[in-house]
C-alpha cells in the first residue's frame, strides 16, 4: 500500500476549526474570568489573564435576596423566567395545531397563509415598535408582561410552525388512520400517535421560543418602564448605569444570564440541530 500523503485540506481544516473555536469562546471565557475579579483587580493594566485572588463576591451579592443589588437582580430573573416560560408554553400550544393543519389539511389559502407566516422574519422588530407601543398603551398592557408574551409569541411562531410541519410531513397518515380504526378520535390519534413521534421537533421549537424570549431586548426596553417589571436584558443595563460601571458585577450578571440558555441548548442541541436539519432541507 502507498503511504498516504498528508492532506493539506484537513490540516487547514483543523487549524481553521481551532481558531474559530478560540474566537467563539474567548469572549465567554473573559466574561467568566472578569466576573471572578475584584473591581480593583479588573482595573489593572495590563490585565491579568487569571485573577490572583479569585472571588465569588459578585455572584454572592447578585444572588442574595438580602442585598439591594440581589433584590433587583432576582426580581428581574423571576420576571424573565415567567415571561419566557409562558411564551414557550403558549407557543407550543398555538404552533402545534397550526403546523398540523398545514401538514395534513388541504384548505384553500393554505400556501398563501404558510408563506405569510414565514415572511414574519422579514420584518424588523424596531419598525413594529411604534404601532405596538401605541396599541399596548391603548390595551393597558404597558408595564404588563402580557405585552411581551404576546409579542414574543410571534417571534417563535414562524420557525416553530415550519419545523413542526416538517416533522408532521414525515409521519405517515396511515398511522393515525390505524389508530382511528382502533376507535381513537382524531384528537386522540393526534395526541397519542403524532405527538410522541414528533417530540424532537416540539422540544426544539420549545427551546427556540424560550431562548428568543429570554434574550429579547428592545421590546422589553420600550414596553416596561416600571423598574419592578424589567426582564434581565433590560434590567442589566439600568442597574449598572445607575452606579459607575462595576465590570466584574456586570460580567457576573451576564454570565448568570447566559448559563440557563447555554446549558439548555448544549443538552438539547442534538434535537435542535436535528429538527433544523430535517426541516431545512428535504429532497
Amino acid at each position, binding site marked *: 500500500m502507498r503511504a498516504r500523503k498528508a492532506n493539506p485540506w484537513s490540516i487547514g481544516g483543523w487549524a*481553521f476549526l481551532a481558531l474559530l473555536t478560540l474566537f467563539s469562546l474567548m469572549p465567554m471565557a473573559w*466574561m467568566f474570568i472578569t466576573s471572578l475579579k475584584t473591581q480593583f483587580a479588573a482595573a489593572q493594566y495590563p490585565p491579568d489573564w487569571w485573577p490572583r485572588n479569585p472571588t465569588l463576591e459578585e455572584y454572592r451579592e447578585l444572588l442574595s435576596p438580602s442585598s439591594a443589588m440581589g433584590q433587583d437582580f432576582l426580581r428581574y430573573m423571576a420576571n424573565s423566567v415567567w415571561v419566557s416560560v409562558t411564551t414557550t408554553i403558549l407557543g407550543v400550544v398555538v404552533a402545534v395545531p397550526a403546523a398540523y393543519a398545514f401538514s395534513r389539511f388541504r384548505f*384553500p389559502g393554505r400556501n398563501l397563509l404558510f408563506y405569510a*407566516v414565514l415572511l414574519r*422574519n422579514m420584518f424588523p422588530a424596531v419598525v413594529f415598535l411604534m404601532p405596538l407601543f401605541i396599541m399596548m398603551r391603548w390595551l393597558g398592557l404597558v408595564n404588563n408582561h402580557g405585552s411581551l408574551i404576546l409579542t414574543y409569541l410571534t417571534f417563535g*411562531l414562524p420557525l416553530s410552525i*415550519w419545523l413542526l410541519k416538517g416533522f408532521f410531513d414525515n409521519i405517515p397518515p396511515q398511522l393515525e388512520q390505524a389508530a382511528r380504526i382502533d376507535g381513537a378520535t382524531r384528537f386522540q390519534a393526534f395526541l397519542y400517535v403524532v405527538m410522541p413521534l414528533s417530540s424532537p421537533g416540539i422540544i426544539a421549537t420549545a427551546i427556540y421560543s424560550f431562548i428568543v424570549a429570554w*434574550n429579547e431586548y428592545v421590546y422589553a426596553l420600550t414596553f416596561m418602564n416600571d423598574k419592578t417589571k424589567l426582564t434581565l436584558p433590560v434590567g442589566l443595563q439600568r442597574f449598572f448605569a445607575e452606579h459607575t460601571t462595576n465590570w466584574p458585577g456586570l460580567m457576573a450578571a451576564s454570565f448568570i444570564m*447566559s448559563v440557563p440558555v447555554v446549558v439548555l*441548548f448544549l443538552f438539547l442541541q442534538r434535537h435542535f440541530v436535528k429538527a433544523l436539519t430535517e426541516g431545512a432541507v428535504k429532497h
Partner: protein
Amino acid sequence: MTGAVAGLVAPAAAPRSRENLLRRIVRHRADYLYVAPALGVMALVIGYPIYYTIHLSFFRTPPNLALDEKIFAGLENYQRILEADTFQEATWNTFVWTIYSTFFSFVLGFGAALALNRAFHGRGLLRGVLLVPYVISAVAASYVWRWLYHSDVGVIGAFATALGLSDGPINFLDNRQWVMASLIVVNVWKEFPFAMIMLMAGLQTVPEQLLSAARVDGAGPWSRFRHVTVPHLKSVILVTVLLLLVTNLNSFTIPYIMTGGGPAGASEIWITHIYQIAFGRIRFGLASAYSVILFVVMMALGYFYVRALTASEEKAAA
C-alpha cells in the same frame, strides 16, 4: 436571534379543483380552527402594525404622543428624511454594516460547515460549542465585547500591544475609523453559527455518489467543491444569504448597546436611527416614514426570498 431560520420546505401543490372557492372554504371550515390562534396572533402583532406604520407616516405627530392631535402632512416626512444629512451617513453605514456582516458570517459559517462535515470524534460537542455565541443574549454579548474593547484596560488592546501591533490602548469604539469594523466583528461572531447550521443541513443532502464520481473522474477537492457541492447547495446558499442580509439590516441590540450610534453618528444605522427618532425625539410620524422606506427595501429582499423558496420547491418536486 430574532432573525429566525425559515423554510426551504414548500407545501406540495394542491390538486386543482373545479369546486368553487367559497364551497371549498365552507367544506374545510373546521381546518381553519387549527390555524386560527396562530394567524390571529400574527395578524394582531404584525398585520395591524404594518397598516398603522404606513398610516402614521403621512402625519405630523406631536412629541407628547397625543395622537389625536396628529396633523395630515402628506409626503412631508419622507421628504424631510431623504433630505437630511444624517440619512446619507446612516445609509452608507447600513450598507457597510449589512454587506460586511453578511459576507464574513457567510464565509466563516461555510468554512465551519465544511470542516464539520466529516465524521470525527467530538463533532457534536464542537458544533454545540460553536453555536454558543448564537444562543447567548445579544445584550450580554454586547457588554462583554465592550469590556474586551475597553479603551483603558481592554484585553484586545493589551494583546495588540503585547504583540507590538500598537503602542498602547486602542480606542476601538470611540474612534470614527475603527468603530464600524469593531462592531462588525461582534456581529459576525454572533451570526456565523447561523450560516453554519443552515449550510451543514445543506451539505448533508449532497449525494456521496456524486462526490465520489467526481473523484473518480480526477476532480480535486477545490473542483469538487466548485462543480458539485456549490451547485447542489445553490438554493440553501441563496436562502442563507438572504436571511443574513435581512437579519443584519434589522439588527439593533449590538450597535445600540455598544455605541448607541456614536461617535457622532459614525455607527448609526437605519434601525438605530429610527429608534432614536421614535423614542429619543418622540417623532412617531417621521420615524414611521423612515420605517416605510426600510419596508420597501425589505420587501424587495422578501420577493427574492419567496422566489428562492419557490425555486427550491420546484427542484424538490422535480
